[in-house]
């Protein structure tokens, strides 16, 4: 029972990071119908920027964190301007957008390599106090709690923002129909830029949290989460924000429990992707999708 509870906590924790990462993915997909494959590169750059600020900049993590988040968001704006805006009116924009996002991912990754080197690096010791709490045989660290709370708070804030604010309504209008939104006088390009800023900032936060927890940062750290993020947004329903959160946690739990049940980590991803495959075949709109999978 204690083991089960421990796994539940671990799964919840890693799942909330996946969820945070996937929310950024799904936001861009929901608005533009484009898979932004540079999202993982921004995840990496966010983490590396935070690291750089704490080491070379000698800043406290409490200042480095928001600064790196802003940098990630700014990278999202660059991404939108350079890779997506020129393609916007093209008939094949979702496929060409996919390719140009790959190009940007390559450019970002080479920048990360050039600036930070190929080594795996760590955060300096003692930049935050990590308490360990034990409840019987269940262990929880304060870092885990902070990560889960940050992730959940940001996801809730985003949901509220999209539901209730004027800018959020504009985002939803553009997602529904770019053309109609333009006719209604919405600044569509501004809304898309805002979407990229939020999406990338969240991707950067996910990277920082991931980096803080595993404490091993490298220019290719985004690779493993890239596919998981895709799996999560399919699981939750493409374009659905609550779906991405739920999907992320479900994915995290499935990983952790596969490892716990089989005793090895070899099959961890196999189970997750088999589930993904099954969901696509049986219910392609995902857990909370809008049921338009077949025409999309």
């Amino acid at each position, binding site marked *: 029972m204690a083991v089960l509870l421990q796994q539940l906590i671990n799964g919840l924790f890693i799942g909330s990071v996946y969820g945070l990462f996937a929310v950024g993915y799904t936001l861009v997909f929901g608005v533009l119908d484009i898979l932004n494959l540079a999202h993982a590169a921004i995840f990496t750059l966010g983490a590396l920027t935070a690291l750089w600020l704490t080491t070379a900049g000698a800043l406290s993590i409490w200042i480095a964190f928001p600064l790196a988040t802003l940098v990630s968001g700014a990278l999202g704006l660059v991404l939108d301007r350079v*890779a997506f805006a020129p393609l916007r009116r*093209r008939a094949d924009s979702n496929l060409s957008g996919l390719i*140009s996002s790959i190009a940007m991912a390559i450019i970002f990754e*080479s920048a990360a390599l050039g600036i930070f080197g190929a080594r795996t690096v760590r955060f300096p010791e003692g930049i935050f106090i990590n308490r360990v709490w034990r409840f019987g045989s269940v262990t929880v660290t304060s870092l885990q709690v902070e990560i889960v709370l940050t992730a959940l708070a940001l996801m809730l804030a985003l949901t509220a923002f999209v539901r209730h604010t004027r800018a959020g309504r504009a985002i939803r209008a553009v997602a529904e129909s770019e053309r109609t939104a333009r006719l209604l006088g919405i600044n569509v390009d501004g809304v898309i830029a805002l979407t990229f800023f939020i999406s990338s900032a969240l991707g950067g936060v996910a990277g920082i949290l991931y980096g803080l927890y595993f404490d091993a940062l490298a220019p290719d750290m985004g690779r493993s989460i890239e596919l998981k993020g895709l799996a999560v947004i399919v699981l939750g329903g493409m374009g659905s924000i609550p779906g991405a959160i739920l999907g992320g946690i479900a994915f995290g739990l499935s990983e952790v429990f596969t490892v716990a049940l089989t005793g090895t980590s*070899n099959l961890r991803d*196999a189970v997750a992707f088999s589930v993904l*495959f099954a969901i*696509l075949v049986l219910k392609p709109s995902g857990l909370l999708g809008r049921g338009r*999978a077949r025409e999309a």
Partner: protein
Amino acid sequence: MEYLAQFYAVYGSLINFIGINAILALSLYVTLSAGQLSLGNAAFAGIGAYASGILTMNFNVPYPISVAAGAGLSAITALVIGMPVLRMRGIFLAMATLAFGEVVRIAAVNMDITGGAQGLVGIPCKTTTYIIYGVLAATTYFLAVLRGSKIGWSLAGIREDETAAMVMGINTSYYKTLAFVLGAFIAGIAGALYAHLNFIVTPGEFGFSAAVQLLVYNIVGGTQSVYGPILGAFILTALPEALRGAGVTAGSLRLGVNGVILLLVIIYLPNGLIFYLSKKYLSKKAGRSGGTVQSEV
């Protein structure tokens, strides 16, 4: 002749990889020509590579038969996978084939017969440059003929508008499955050739980035003609080497220049390079209709 031999000695492996990548690009071209975006073709190549490598190494099967068997297994897998998966469209098909590819990769890591994460080592090197380019030529010819046939037109009809094609009496699921299986077969051949060229195959080579790379070859080269994907594979495989020749040696910078070139092509040459190469030729003809815009996949 002397010079040619020297050139081959230096660039032989690059030439071979260009050929293999071109065949792989064509495998995705078939699927794309029916409007289906598959990210599973790298995995099909992996199935072909592993199956043929295992047959040659463990069962002493002759090279041509093991290549054919690898491709055959790939095609059969595609047939089984294709039935449920091809009901999906666009990005959902891409995701499903992506998930399939990951499962194949993880299976290769976890099985004993595939050599696990280290891969299958010690496959006899039997593939030659002549074989690769022979297969490439045969595949190109076959696909060019296919394009003008009833099957080719049906696939084009499905790509343009699947519902309309269905209404016209085209058996869309039959043709989609055909394109998917044919693509997997070609990918399987390429994988099997690769296995017998490279001495070793590892699971990572057939993952997500390989699948995306095939798509990049097609989009950069252009999918209006069978020569587009070949051109794309040629340029993008040779590009890192050409950049090195041009003096861009730092690894990260070379990667970055690669990315910038890809970005410039996709933004400024939206129909793929082949379209612009043939444009001059086309514009000499009178009454050419305006540039065709590549249809949405």
